[in-house]
Structure formats: structure tokens, C-alpha cells
């Protein structure tokens, strides 16, 4: 059990909300969240549909452990076909709305069709209703959040919505919940806006019960919390430093992509690191970081709540930005900072606020700005194209102006909203786009971390660190240390991480627990909560099943082996400094072995036997 066994199907074309039972046969194979919603999506849409057409569907989905006392059990995902990549998209978010969906009695909301006029979904326990969003269209995430709390007179209502960027068609807009948590990647928010769905408001007090074996569940979750509390990363590193604990570490190992991946170390890294966020600033003696913060049920609490220096140029005469809000995580500090060469912590924090305020992915945005800067410096674009912005590496002003324009889709912001791939193609320099399958890279340079190159190239949602975080093994030695510069054993390592992550992403738990937890810690929690027999092995098998389902979707959507690659720069231009100096990513050494390890053909297609074994 642990599922509510209830799906809300919202037909935006017809304006109807209907309840249907959860397909438990699928739940037993795909758990929840990423796996289960992917199964529904694969069943219900033609993978070839235009992602922004009414024929695409958007699924908000929880996991069986979402809303329970399991540590980090507050996750939810948004699954759809991505307008950025044309592949399946699954963006995972924390905050509080996932648990609220479960408390309202639902596992999943499926949105289909397209509304004639802007609407938002209001869910109060089992009562669901589409309401007019005429007044909300054109409003930012933050404005929308405040208005909806006031309309419903309920400060505890949980809200997920899209900002103005999504309305304007920015291809990497996310769905923001609880003001600054994001289902951020692959443009899931763009799909939501294309359906004229502005927001989802949820309030529930039915509770999450249905625990298969409550006593065993309480024991298993308590044991697992102990593991988190005793692990240096989850008990100290993440709460004190956040994911930003990585900034200096990754820079030192020479895997910090810098200035659109031209370099692999950033001289300004220390200025935008976790340590810098703790330093009191001159103007008011306060540090950038106000507090750490937990998502629902999380006993790690890695979240950053920050302020911009009240004297900083970005917020002069803008009191609305002087309060605290979601601060820099490592990926956003990297993309907005190292990748653009900007080392102004407050400019990055401000740009990150804007990304949250208007709902667009700071990774893709920062990386697109980096590409634009290289286009500008090479003369491929000029001041005429940028509307007068000097798009130079290291320019904080260019970065923050770019953020403001992308938020509203004005001027050069419309170009930036295309993402790096389309932007570079538009200006005739496709080779400057640091993307896989059209999605921008995150913060680990595949030349310095070989396994990540394979993980990026084969990720089912395009370049992504969260589809197989081999950095954990290659840099941090969790669960075992492997050499980041070697390709040996990496195909198997990547497959293992990909499958395990797909399983964790389907439970309702946060992948950051895996700094301390293995599937040995997770399986007892799932097993006690859910019907069926869940072991580390069966979870891993479910993960592999999910991976193959996603792969099949992508192949059916028209992607091929040719899309499992990296930009030439990473394969041809050697790293210039650091421990990886002289190295390129040796993807060709790894990819065939990976296909084999996966039970796929040389063309990267799952063999019939593989699909049969996994019951895909």
C-alpha cells in the first residue's frame, strides 16, 4: 500500500476533473513518481507528438513514500515530453506540495488537452475544480503564489505554478512549487503553460496511511534516519554548506566547466562557494546565507535561504528582493557563475531569485548565457542582437540583465529562452552549444570525470547530473572510489547508478540521501510501506525497467544512437589545467560496452530479450 490509489485526470480541453483508480499492476512494477508516470505517459501519448501541442500530457506524480515520515519523503515529479529535448522529461522537486497531494488523497494528477482560457486547478481533498486564471496570467510565480493564498485565504495551501517565462515560451521553464522549489529541468513548465494551466493549488487533510506494515515502517525509517544523522555528508556537509560544499572540491579536481566549457577550473570559484556564502559582507555585516531549510520530512535540510546584499546594484530601490529566498545550490552557482565567468556572489543570488520568481531553470539559463557570451566574443552575435548588452564572460551586469529579460521574454531574452542549442544554431555556431539532446550540461566537466561523460551522453532526458551521479564514486568515493580519469569499469558503474537512481526517483525519496544510503537502507522502508516484496535487487530491477521504458519512449520519439554523444569540445579539446590537464572525454571507449551492459544492440536499442526480462 502507501499509495492512495487514486489518480485525478484533468481534461483541460473539456474543463473536467475525474477520479480514476491507480493502475496497481503498474505501481507494483514502477513504484511511483518517475517510473509510474513514465509508464502512464508511454501508454497514453504518441512519443512523436509535438511537446507543446494539446496532444502532449503533463503528469504531476508522487511516490509511495511521499507524505510519510521517511526522511526526505516529500518528493514529487513532473513528467511529460520535453519541448527542449524531444525526449521524455521527468523533473523532480521537493518542497511541500508532493506531500500535500498525498494528504489530499491523490497519487497523481494527469493533465491532458489544452484549456481555451488560462485556468488553475484547485484541489481540496477529493474535490477538484478548474478555476479561471485570467487574473493570474502575466503574473510571476511569486505574485501568483501570494494572490492564490489570499484568494483561498489559506496560508497553508501548497501551490505549484509557472511564471512569465513559461507563458512566453522559454523552452527551459520549470514548474515552481512553494516559491523556490522547482521541477526545473527540460521545460516541463513550458508544457504546463502551453496548456494554459497557470497553477495547481492543493490542500489536504485526509492523511497518508495505508502503510502495509506500520511497525516495520517506523523501525525502518528510524534506522535509516540514524544512518543520515551519522554520515558526515548528510549530517554536516549538506546542512551546513548545502550542495555548494562541492564548489571548491570540484574546482580542485579540475572538473569545473568554466566559460562555456572552454576551461575546467574557475579562478573565482572561492568567491561564489559555500564558504563565501557564510562570510559576513561589508554593507550590513550579514552573510549571504540566512539559514538552511528542509523540504517536507527531510532530516538533512540542505536547502539554502539567502539574501542579496541590500547595497548591491541589482536590488537598488527594489525592496521586494530584499527579503530572504531560495539561495544558490551548487548547480546554479556553477551555471550562473563559473560557466559565465561571473564571480559576483550577489549577482548570482539575484539571478537565481529571478529564475525562481519567473520559473526557469538556472542550469539551462546560465549555460545558455555562457553560450551567448561565447557567441558575442567570437562576433557571431553583436550588440544589435543583444539589444545593447555587452555579453562578455565575467560580466555580472550582462548576466542579471539577461535574467530579467528571460523572465519576461523581452528583447534578447526571447533568444535566450530558446536554450543553448537553438541559440547557437540560429547564429550559425552549433558547435558552441554545450548540450546533449538539446539540454544544457550541469556542473561537472566530462573531461575530468570520465563516467559523467557517459552518463550525460546516455541520459534519457539530455545532459543531466541526476540521471547517474557517478561523481559520487569518481570524486567522493561513495560507495566505492573509482579513478575519475579512467574509463575502466565506467559503463557498468554508469548503468548501476542510472538504475539505482531511477528506482530512488520513483519512491518519493530524495536522491541526496544516497550520499549516505544505499538500496540496502531504502529497500526496507519501501518494503514496509508497500505491498509486494521490495529488496535492493527488486528495486534495482525496477530501476532498470524504468530506464529501458524511457529509452524506448525516446527511440519511438525519433531519437537514435547519434543522440548519445557529447559536444566536440569535450571529445576533442583537451582540458588545459588541473589534474585532468590534457584529457578529453573518451566516450567512444565506453559507449559500446555500455550498450552491451544494458542488453542493447549496437544501435542502442533494447534487445527483445531485455525488454522481455524486464517486462517492459
Amino acid at each position, binding site marked *: 500500500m502507501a499509495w492512495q490509489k487514486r489518480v485525478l485526470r484533468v481534461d483541460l480541453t473539456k474543463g473536467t476533473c475525474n477520479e480514476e483508480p491507480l493502475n496497481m499492476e503498474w505501481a507494483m512494477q514502477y513504484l511511483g513518481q518517475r517510473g509510474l508516470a513514465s509508464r502512464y505517459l508511454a501508454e497514453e501519448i504518441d512519443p512523436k507528438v509535438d511537446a507543446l501541442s494539446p496532444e502532449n500530457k503533463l503528469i504531476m506524480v508522487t511516490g509511495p513514500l511521499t507524505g510519510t515520515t521517511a526522511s526526505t519523503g516529500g518528493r514529487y515529479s513532473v513528467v511529460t515530453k520535453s519541448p527542449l529535448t524531444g525526449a521524455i522529461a521527468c523533473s523532480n522537486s521537493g518542497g511541500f506540495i508532493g*506531500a500535500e497531494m498525498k494528504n489530499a488523497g491523490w497519487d497523481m494528477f494527469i493533465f491532458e488537452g489544452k484549456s481555451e482560457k488560462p485556468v488553475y486547478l484547485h484541489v481540496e481533498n477529493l474535490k477538484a475544480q478548474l478555476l479561471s486564471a485570467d487574473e493570474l496570467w502575466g503574473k510571476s510565480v511569486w505574485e501568483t503564489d501570494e494572490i492564490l493564498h489570499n484568494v483561498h485565504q489559506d496560508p497553508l495551501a501548497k501551490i505549484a505554478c509557472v511564471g512569465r517565462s513559461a507563458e512566453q515560451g522559454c523552452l527551459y521553464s520549470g514548474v515552481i512549487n512553494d516559491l523556490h522549489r522547482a521541477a526545473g529541468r527540460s521545460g516541463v513548465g513550458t508544457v504546463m503553460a502551453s496548456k494554459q494551466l497557470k497553477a495547481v493549488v492543493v490542500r489536504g487533510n485526509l492523511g497518508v496511511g495505508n502503510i502495509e506494515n506500520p511497525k516495520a515502517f517506523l523501525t525502518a525509517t528510524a534506522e535509516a534516519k540514524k544512518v543520515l544523522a551519522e554520515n558526515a555528508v548528510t549530517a554536516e556537509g549538506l546542512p551546513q554548506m548545502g550542495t555548494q560544499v562541492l564548489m571548491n572540491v570540484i574546482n580542485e579536481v579540475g572538473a569545473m566547466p568554466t566559460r562555456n566549457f572552454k576551461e575546467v577550473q574557475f579562478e573565482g570559484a572561492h568567491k561564489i562557494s559555500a564558504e563565501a556564502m557564510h562570510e559576513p559582507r561589508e554593507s550590513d555585516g550579514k552573510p549571504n546565507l540566512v539559514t538552511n*531549510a528542509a523540504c517536507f520530512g527531510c532530516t538533512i535540510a540542505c536547502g539554502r535561504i539567502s539574501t542579496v546584499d541590500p547595497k548591491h546594484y541589482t536590488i537598488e530601490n527594489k525592496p521586494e528582493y530584499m527579503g530572504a529566498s531560495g539561495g544558490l545550490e551548487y548547480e546554479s552557482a556553477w551555471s550562473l557563475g563559473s560557466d559565465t565567468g561571473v564571480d559576483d556572489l550577489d549577482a548570482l543570488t539575484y539571478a537565481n531569485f529571478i529564475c525562481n520568481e519567473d520559473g526557469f531553470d538556472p542550469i539551462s539559463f546560465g549555460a545558455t548565457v555562457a553560450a551567448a557570451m561565447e557567441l558575442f566574443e567570437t562576433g557571431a552575435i553583436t550588440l544589435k542582437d543583444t539589444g545593447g548588452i555587452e555579453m562578455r564572460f565575467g560580466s555580472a551586469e550582462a548576466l542579471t540583465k539577461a535574467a530579467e529579460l528571460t523572465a519576461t521574454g523581452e528583447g534578447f531574452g526571447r533568444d535566450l529562452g530558446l536554450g543553448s542549442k537553438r541559440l547557437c544554431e540560429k547564429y550559425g555556431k552549433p558547435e558552441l552549444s554545450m548540450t546533449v539532446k538539446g539540454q544544457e550540461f550541469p556542473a561537472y566537466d566530462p573531461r575530468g570525470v570520465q563516467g559523467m561523460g557517459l552518463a550525460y551522453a546516455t541520459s534519457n532526458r539530455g545532459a543531466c547530473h541526476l540521471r547517474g551521479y557517478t561523481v559520487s564514486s569518481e570524486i567522493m568515493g561513495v560507495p566505492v572510489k573509482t579513478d575519475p580519469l579512467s574509463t575502466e569499469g565506467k559503463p557498468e558503474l554508469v548503468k548501476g547508478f542510472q538504475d539505482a537512481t531511477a528506482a530512488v526517483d520513483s519512491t518519493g525519496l530524495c536522491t541526496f540521501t544516497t550520499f549516505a544510503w544505499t538500496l540496502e537502507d531504502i529497500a526496507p522502508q519501501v518494503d514496509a510501506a508497500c505491498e509486494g516484496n521490495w529488496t535492493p535487487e527488486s528495486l534495482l530491477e525496477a530501476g532498470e525497467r524504468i530506464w529501458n521504458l524511457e529509452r524506448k519512449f525516446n527511440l519511438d520519439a525519433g531519437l537514435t544512437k547519434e543522440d548519445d554523444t557529447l559536444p566536440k569540445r569535450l571529445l576533442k579539446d583537451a582540458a588545459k589545467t588541473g589534474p585532468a590537464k590534457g584529457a578529453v572525454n573518451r566516450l567512444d571507449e565506453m559507449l559500446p560496452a555500455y550498450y552491451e551492459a544494458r542488453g542493447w544492440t549496437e544501435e542502442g536499442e533494447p534487445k527483445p530479450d531485455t525488454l522481455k526480462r524486464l517486462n517492459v
Partner: protein
Amino acid sequence: MLRSLQLESEKCTGCLQCEMACSYENEGVFNPSKSRIKVFTFHEEGRFAPYTCSQCAEAWCLHACPVDAITINPGTGAKDVSEDVCVGCKVCTIACPFGTVNYNADSGKVIKCDLCGGDPACVEACPTEAITYVDASNAGMDRMRAHAAQTIKS
């Protein structure tokens, strides 16, 4: 010596494990909406505040109850609501100046913290020791008392 819940907002991360533990103890499901302890988030300031009944000496709720449904537990000093006796008139919910007695529309009765009979589940659940169960004479209780003192007199 009676013990009290000491709530230290500066240790709270807003994870709501206390709300889940409380609701599980009292309702048998994980249901923060029915928790007797609530964590409030101050978004603009980046603060969190766990908050529940301080079992105040004035016992506004107890005196306001028209049917004697709220009594003092001799073991814990908590003001306990007897669900059998409560008629659901909600007078205590407006009488309690701390707002810590709440109406539960599903049961038609009011709910409030009863210190779990002396073994508060929220204390056990809190990962950061923001909620502790301490001697009422503990120095940390001073500021909570100061708070109570600045409230009202009849």
C-alpha cells in the same frame, strides 16, 4: 517535577517531522493538518517556528469549556480534552489567546496538545533537538513564560 515542551526556533529547519509524529500518534496517519504542533515558516526572514500549547497556568480553554470537557492531567499537567465529553461548540478555540486549541471538522471535536501523556512524540521525531521535553524550571523556559506573562488578564 512537571515537564514542559521547550521549543527553540533557532534549531528548526521546517522539516515537519514533528507534525507527522504528532498526527501519527493521535490520528494513526501522517497528516500534518491534524498535528497538535505546527511549524510556521517566515519565508521572507528565513525562519521557522515550532509552536504548540504551552499548557499555560491560566488554562483559558479549560475555563471557557461549557461542558467540562477539558481537565488537567495530574500526571503531566497538560490540559486534556476528553473527546467523549466535548460537544464541539468551539468556544475554547476562540477563548485560547494562543490559538493552540483547534477544531477538527472531521471529528466534530477540538484537538490540542496533551503531551502524549508524558512522552511527546514530537520530541522523539525532531532531528535537530528544536523540541525538547524539559523540567518546567529549566532556564530555557523563561522566554516562553515571559511570552505568557505579556498576554492577558481577566
